[in-house]
């Protein structure tokens, strides 16, 4: 384990940014946001960013290919090239686990998504343990340990120093390259912090929430539940929950005409949108209730069924904070398992 004193944090950032782009969570008008580090970019005090690190690997929109068109002829132009190396500093445990959720879809389920893979291979994640979780946090529900995040380099920030532990090949190489400004450290301070975090996690309001009722094979149990109608009755059908969600990965592929041909790009899409499943001759999910149900069934039942029981929610709490009508996966889970406030 290596450490660097907090007053030298800028030196650390500068050193990393010498060889690749570095992104750190920093304050902005939208709230905390991963920002490309330049001299003076300050680390936020907020617990987490408005949007997760998904955007780095699966951006809101990305060009896939181009077409040149002339008369009846078409030329397909592959515009993929090697992504530049980059480092993300300060990713939280929930958001790092979200990458595993996305990896299962884009890397591990055949065929591999080469666009995602390209970015994933060139990105290094320096995670940061959470000493001050907030009331909307419930990563523990999904077996995520906020005291021991995953990532390439796992960091713990104490009052006076940043402790770094490389846990992957990429992380080791990066940490080695920082050896002249960091020093060896024992695990005492980090161990103390981990104990504090573990204790705090048990005091969170949602600490008792479990996934016991959910998982693969529960389609029949929940699909026709009368709760869906009540839960979705005031859903606006907007895409906020899906777009701030670090694990939502549905996308659309669209064409854009430019002066010299056509660009085919993909962009985030939302199962909450009325057009999502619409075909020329009909729509298999016509009501908002059906679309709402799809989103939560996917996270709590369908995804685990296909991924050895792993849920595609990481308890980051973003939907709790951002839904315009304050509906969210916690309310859904509690209602479905029959333990919501109303029916106790």
């Amino acid at each position, binding site marked *: 384990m290596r450490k660097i004193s907090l007053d030298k944090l800028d030196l650390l950032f500068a050193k990393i940014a010498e060889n690749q782009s570095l992104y750190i969570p920093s304050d902005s*008008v*939208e*709230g905390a946001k991963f920002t490309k580090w330049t001299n003076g970019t300050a680390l936020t005090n907020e*617990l987490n960013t*408005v*949007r997760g690190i998904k955007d780095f690997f699966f951006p*809101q*929109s990305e060009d896939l290919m181009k077409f040149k068109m002339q008369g009846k002829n078409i030329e397909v132009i592959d515009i993929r090239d090697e992504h530049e190396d980059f480092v993300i500093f300060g990713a939280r445990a929930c958001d790092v686990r979200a990458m595993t959720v996305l990896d299962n879809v884009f890397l591990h389920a055949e065929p591999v998504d080469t666009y995602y893979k390209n970015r994933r291979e060139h990105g290094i994640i320096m995670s940061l343990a959470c000493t*001050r*979780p*907030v*009331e*909307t946090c419930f990563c523990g529900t999904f077996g995520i340990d906020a005291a021991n995040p995953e990532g390439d380099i796992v960091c713990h920030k104490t009052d006076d120093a940043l402790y770094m532990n490389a846990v992957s090949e990429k992380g080791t190489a990066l940490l080695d390259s920082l050896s002249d400004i960091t020093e060896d450290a024992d695990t005492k301070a980090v161990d103390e912090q981990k104990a504090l975090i573990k204790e*705090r996690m048990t*005091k*969170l*309001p*949602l600490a008792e929430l479990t996934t016991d009722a959910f998982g693969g094979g529960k389609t029949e149990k929940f699909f026709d539940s009368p709760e869906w109608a*009540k839960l979705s*009755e*005031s859903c*606006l*059908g*907007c*895409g*906020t929950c*899906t*777009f*701030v969600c670090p694990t939502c990965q549905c996308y*659309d592929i*669209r064409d*854009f005409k430019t002066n010299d041909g056509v*660009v085919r*790009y993909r*962009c*985030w*899409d*939302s199962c909450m*949108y*009325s*057009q999502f499943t*619409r075909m020329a001759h009909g729509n298999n999910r016509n009501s908002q209730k059906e679309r709402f149900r799809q989103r939560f069934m996917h996270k709590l039942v369908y995804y685990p069924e296909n991924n050895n029981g792993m849920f595609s929610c990481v308890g980051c709490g973003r939907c*709790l*904070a*951002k839904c*315009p*009508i*304050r*509906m*969210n996966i*916690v*309310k859904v889970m*509690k209602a479905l398992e029959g333990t919501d*406030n*109303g*029916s106790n």
Partner: protein
Amino acid sequence: MQEVMRDKLVAKAKELLTGGVVTRVLGWKRGEFCYDLTPGIFKSADELDKEFDFGDFAAPNLSKYLIDETRKEDGKVAVFMKPCDTYSFNQLLTEHRIDREKVYVIGVPCEGMIDNKKLSAAADGIKNVAVDYENVVVETLWDGNVTVPRESVLAERCLNCKSKKHVALDELVGYEDEITECNRFDEVARLEAMTPEERFEFWQGELSRCIRCNACRDVCPACTCEKCVFDNPSSGVESKAPSDSFEEKMFHIIRAFHVTGRCTDCGECSRVCPQNIPLHLLNRKFIKDINELWGEYQAGAEVGSRAPLVNYTFDDMEPSEAVERGDKNA
């Protein structure tokens, strides 16, 4: 700090339900925390007792839900409305989107709603919140009690409250107040005073954060098209992500134009934006322009009023004159 308490509203709702005046009540449901109220329908006294809530976080404007509710063949629906919500209601009536006969409006006075985003920024780990006229005391997870001035966490729209008077009402619970003096156009004036380049940069910065979640449109009581042009595959402008920086701005600008003269300035668009874009400023600019070009006009102040933009008279200025006056403002 709401003067009228939840229990009074529950009692009123029960009375209307049991008296057969209405078959259901549209209100706010208690959430997981003290601040996350969700709009919802209540059909029984039992549901009201268990789930109804009201207070400083009953921000959602319920008027738009009445479009669907009044289409149901299920008798009358009672709805709770804060003063500013009633402007949206009237505007929807003006546009024949709601069947007035099927609604029973219960007015609720409002002392201003707390902005969740401001509150979360002011205090980490919110366990509980106590509000009085002066202060908000937040019981936090790790920092004990944190006290902040109430004004510092009030929603922008409430700091610039345009009216504490209900403009539509079947019955009032509590007291009635007056239309208020406010400075809601100050920020617009500040933008108008910028050079075009500065102003462009301001909006570029704001709108480039948009993630096209459509929450602003979907919550907007003026956005009631059966099929939005931006959702229509055959419109040619259906899109879920800005394909370039022009299109990025187009969505919001077209939306602002479309609700011009119909926007009551309820502020829901800015409340729900996950990216903190001050969308209400676009609409306020149009309201300010209308006020200056055709005289003061407040959408939703009365039912059936013809908005200046659709009310052509011989006294209207010539378009060239409007352009000139617009140029002066630019």
